[in-house]
Every structure is written in C-alpha cells, then in structure tokens.
C-alpha cells in the first residue's frame, strides 16, 4: 500500500490546506485532518465531535506540561 499523504501539506495551494498547515505549525488541533485520518484508517468507527476533539487534543498535547524552550 502506498499512501500519498497530504498530511498538513500545502502543495495544492488551497485555502483549507493552508489553514490546516498553519494550525499544525502553531500546534492547534486539526479537526479536518482528524476526520480524514479516521476515514482512511478506521472507516466506520464513530468520531469525536469538534468540541470533544479540541479537548482531547489539548489534553494530549499539554499532558506533560508541553516542553517549551527557554
């Protein structure tokens, strides 16, 4: 299996893709990317709604306090 993997890329020059790339740079949750991931890898399983995904994302991201540099 070969996957093209647009993950977070902005090669197509589309506005949605740019927003998605920007979110990932800033460490923000990327809901559209999550939906795509679920559709590709776990089709048929229930997905979180946007609010729950936001909460799950920030909890996971800052679970260890988020290593920040000086």
């Amino acid at each position: 299996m070969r996957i093209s993997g647009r993950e977070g890329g902005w090669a197509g020059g589309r506005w949605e893709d740019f927003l998605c790339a920007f979110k990932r740079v800033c460490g923000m949750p990327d809901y559209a990317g999550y939906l795509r991931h679920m559709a590709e890898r776990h089709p048929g399983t229930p997905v979180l709604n946007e609010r729950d995904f936001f909460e799950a994302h920030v909890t996971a991201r800052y679970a260890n306090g988020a290593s920040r540099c000086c």
Partner: protein
Amino acid sequence: MTRILWILVSLVGAAAWGVIALHRGETINAAWLVLAAVGTYLVGYRFYGRFLANRVFGLDARATPAERLSNGRDYCPTTKWVLFGHHFAAIAGAGPLVGPVLAMQFGWLPGTLWIVFGVVLGGAVQDFVILFGSMRRDGKSLGKMARDEIGPVTGLFAMVAILAIMVILLAVLALVVTNALKDSPWGIFSILCTIPIALLMGVWMRFLRPGKTIEATVAGIVLLCLALVGGRYVALSPSLAPLFTHGGLTIAWGLMVYGFIASVLPVWLLLAPRDYLSTFMKIGTIVLLAIGILIVMPPLRMPALTRFIDGTGPVFAGKLFPFAFITIACGAISGFHALVSSGTTPKMIRRERDARLIGYGGMLTESFVAIMALCAAAALDPGIYFSINAPLAALGGTVESAAAQIRQWGFTVTPEQLTALSASVGEASLLGRVGGAPSLAVGMAAIFSGVFGSHLMGLWYHFAIMFEALFILTTLDAGTRVGRFMLQDFLGHIWEPLGRTSWYPSNLLASGLITAAWGYFLVQGVLDPLGGINSLWPLFGISNQLLAAVALCVGTTLIIKAGKKRYAWVTLLPLAWLLIVTLTAGWQKIFAADPRLGFLAHARSIAEKIAAGTQDPAIGARLIWNDRLDAALAGVFMTIVVALVVASVREWTAVIRGRKPALVKETPFVESAYAN
C-alpha cells in the same frame, strides 16, 4: 548545475567572513554578518547535516512512530515544512534573544563566531541526534533514553538535573520580565491585558465556537494590539498610571501568583490559548525582524571586541572564556531542545529522512534568530547599550552619573541622549534595566522605526517588550506544569496518592512547591544589589549547557551502540568543548577570588563588611546565605554531569571492548507506506 550553485554559496559565505575579518576596527554593516551566517548554515546543512543523516544515523525508509502509531492527535504524520515550523516554534523562545544581547559586552565578534560555528558543529547535532534517537524509539523522552541506554542511576540523575534546571530557567526568565516591567505602567498594563484576552479565547474555543482556534487567535491578536495602544494612554493618564506602576518586588510576587494559578487551571482555559497567541506572535515578529534588518541594514556601532573581554564588564562578571560560551546558550547549543526533540516532534515526523530538515535545520534557524538579536543589539550605540544593561548600582541613579560612568568605560553618551531615548519609548527611565529584554526592545524598535518612521518608536518598543513577556509568561505556566508532573512522579514513590495527577490536593501541593522554588530565586534576584542577572544568568547558562552535555552523552551512546564508533566524534567533539566550558565556568563561579565573580568570595566580602559595620547584618546574612546556595547549586550541577559522563564512558568502553553487546533498543524495522 547544483554543484555550481553550492560552490557559489560557499564562496559568498567565505567572502562575507573575509570582509568581517578585514574590517577590524571600522564600523561594519549587519548585512555581512547575516550573509556569513546564512552561507555557513547552508553549507553546514548540505554537507555536514547530510553526512550525519546518511552515514552516522543511517536514516532510511522505515515507518516512523507517527505512521505506525497514528491516532490523529499527538501521533500524526505531518509534512516536513509544516513540522519544521512547528518544531522551530517550540524551540525558539527568549533564550536566543536575550543571551546574545548580554554577551554583547564583549563586542559582537565572539558571539557571532560562537553562534554560527557552535550551532553547525554542536547545537544542531545535539537536536538532530536526540530527535533521531527518540524517533527510533516511539518518541521516548530524553530521561527514558538515558535510563534505557546508559543505566537506571543515570536516568535518575538526568531527571534530577532536568528538574533543577527548570527551576533556574523559570526564575531567570521571570527576572527578565520583572526588570522589563518595573515602574512601566505601559508595559504592565499591556501584559496584564494578555491574561483576560487568553481566558476569553479559551472560553471561545471551548464553549462559544468549539474548536475554532484560528478565529479565536486572530481576535486575540487584534485585542493585544488594542491593549498595546491602550497602554500608552494609561501611561499618560495621571489617574490610571499609578495603578499600573509597580516596583520589582510586587511584580515578582504577581508573577508567582500567576504561575501558580495558571499551572493548576485546565489547559484549554489559559495555557492553550496563550500558547497559540505566543506562537503566532513569535513567528510573525521574527519574520518582521528579519525583513526589517534586511531593509535597514544597520551598521554595527558596537566594536568587534570591547575592553571587557578581561572580565571587568558591568553586565556580568567573568572573562571572554568561558563566559561568552555560557551566556549564549540557546542559539549556539541548548540542552533544553533535547526535551522538545524527544517530546512532541518525533511523534509527528512523516518520513525518517525529514528529520534532517526538522532537527538540524530547525536549530540552524534558531541560531539565525540569535544572529538577528545580536545585530539589533550591536546596532545600538555602545553608550546606550551599557546605560540599559549595567546595574543601577554601577551607573548611579541619574542620567548625569550614568553618562559620567559610561565615559569612564570608554564610550560616549550625553545625559540628553539618555533622557531623549527614554522619552521616545514612553518610559520614565531605561537606566539599569538589566536582563537583555529592554535593550533588545530598543534595538528592535530602532530597526522597525527605520522601516516605518520614527514617530512610532514607543509603540514598537512596547510591542517588543510584550512579545517577549508573552512567551516568557507562557513558559512560566508550561514550565511550572512540567516541574509539577516531575515532582509528582518523585512524590508518588514516597506516598502513592501524591503521584496522582488527577488528585487536586496533590496538584496544588506540587505546583506550590515548584512555584516557591523558582519564586525564591526570583525574589533574591530582584533584591540583589547587582541586579540578579549577574548571578542567575550564568547559573542558567551552566545548567542549560550541562543538560546539553547529558543529551550528547546519550547521543554518543546511541551512536556507539549502533556499531558506528568511528563516527562517535560528531557528538564527542561538542561534548568535550561543553565540559571544558561549563566545568571551568562552574569552578570560577564557586571559587574565584574576585567577589563579583565567585559566590564564596562574595560571601566573604559581605562578611567582612558586616564585621566592619558598613553592611546591615540582617541583609548581609541573607546575601551570604544566597551566595552559598548558588555555590552549592553550581556544585550540584557539576557533580551530576561528572557522574553522568563517568557512567557513560564506562558504558562506551564496555561496548567497545566487547564486554557488552552493541545493541540498541530501537523499535523493529517496518517499511514505510509513504513514497520515499
């Protein structure tokens, strides 16, 4: 064709270094520094970075943790340029901005050489090797790798070191903010506004428009700009200004209360929105500064080398060697990056080969930020630079006394110039605002004013202060949390419930202890007659470089255990240099006979003053206690690193002599499904 291009890049870089070498004694333009630095980065990335990736690490087509463990959240494959931006935003902070500014007391040349060559041979190698190691181990942290690859005692030492370093880091960053904000109603007002703005964003993203992070952040930025403009009116208003004018001690306590409360609130309410805001601002401002420097191309007014390389400088004590290499940590090599490189980033790499751009390239970019900060500070008039960065105790309280003292140091500045400068940025006085942030802000404001016109100088100055304070406050929150989790991990071994991060009393206790620890050093720094930076910044530099030494020990172990001992010099070389620098600096800070430099000598001189009746005994006793505490801390750092190096060397010799199998604990090979 590409070969011709690379020959050209190398030639341009070499020519820029040539110009720098031949221009000694005359004023040189910042453009040459930028050109020399970028040329060196490109050559370093193309040749040394590639050598590391292909020969030393052997990056290949195996599936990364992001691909194998993908969950759409923390493990998620991300395109390399996006992840590069993400990683850069995580490693860049106040460190690369402040360190080069402080080290400017030696002149611009030592800092430039250390930042550019230190990063290519040291800092970027460290970030890359740890990123590589963590990526091959499902995103394991530095502490866990130290435990698994070297031994359990080493792992424990590494954890203790990280905790102690965190405390010093938070104290020194909080001190930088305190010095930038004291007696500045404009600054305090705009920084205070960031708190309700972040809370509002948090509520917006959680309840009003769930998950709409970008619109909340854009709204937050607009509000920040309004707060910035509003600050000017607050500062000019006779009734409002006193409400927002506070001394260092009040600000220090305020920061502690903030750090404590922020670190126990839910992350979505304050930390996440703050983090988005500061990342946004950080990237925007750095890009703006780069463009500004390219447009203005300021001449460097600071000499290449000053007379203070002999160790008599007012900003901090100590000679060029080893203190230039301690003062500039981030930007050349920073141990803290090892925590980020073994944190979120390795869980997001899509293809192994992307690690070169992210690990090695990300650090080169941070080094470039340090070069820009250095240019902004070197473009200031040396007299102005020393009027802001020397402690008030040395300058005296008036512009006349400051100008006279600066003349004695061999630089010219008139009292009128000093008064005009503080008026132009909307402050009562800029004298003795040690810590680096204010002089960097003046430098940045001068560059932005060069682009947009000088009538906005005050706004740009406070913009730069807010930009620095914004992410330092985010670091206080995040750092207190990191410390809290680590402490809870330890406390859990003593009494199990204390280890539970879901138990609120335990969270409050651990957060309180961490805040008290950094708060203690912060308050002592504020009360220190020499300005606090003189003792805290070197301690921070030493501890940060020692963490880098830990990371390089782990890196060397990974390389030797992978059967590549002939390449072990790539990490051993920077490791040896760091050990020489930090152990010398640590030794001097503890034992040097000069009371300005050595902690113990300073304690003795205070004791003599008490005996002679020229020092208040109560204050004197506190100063002596702090000197001994600082000396003990430096001693602990040195002991930990020596113990770690000894343990590592024993492990290396055991593997090389064949007493131990050369086995790495990597996750087994699975081929990637991505087109490589």
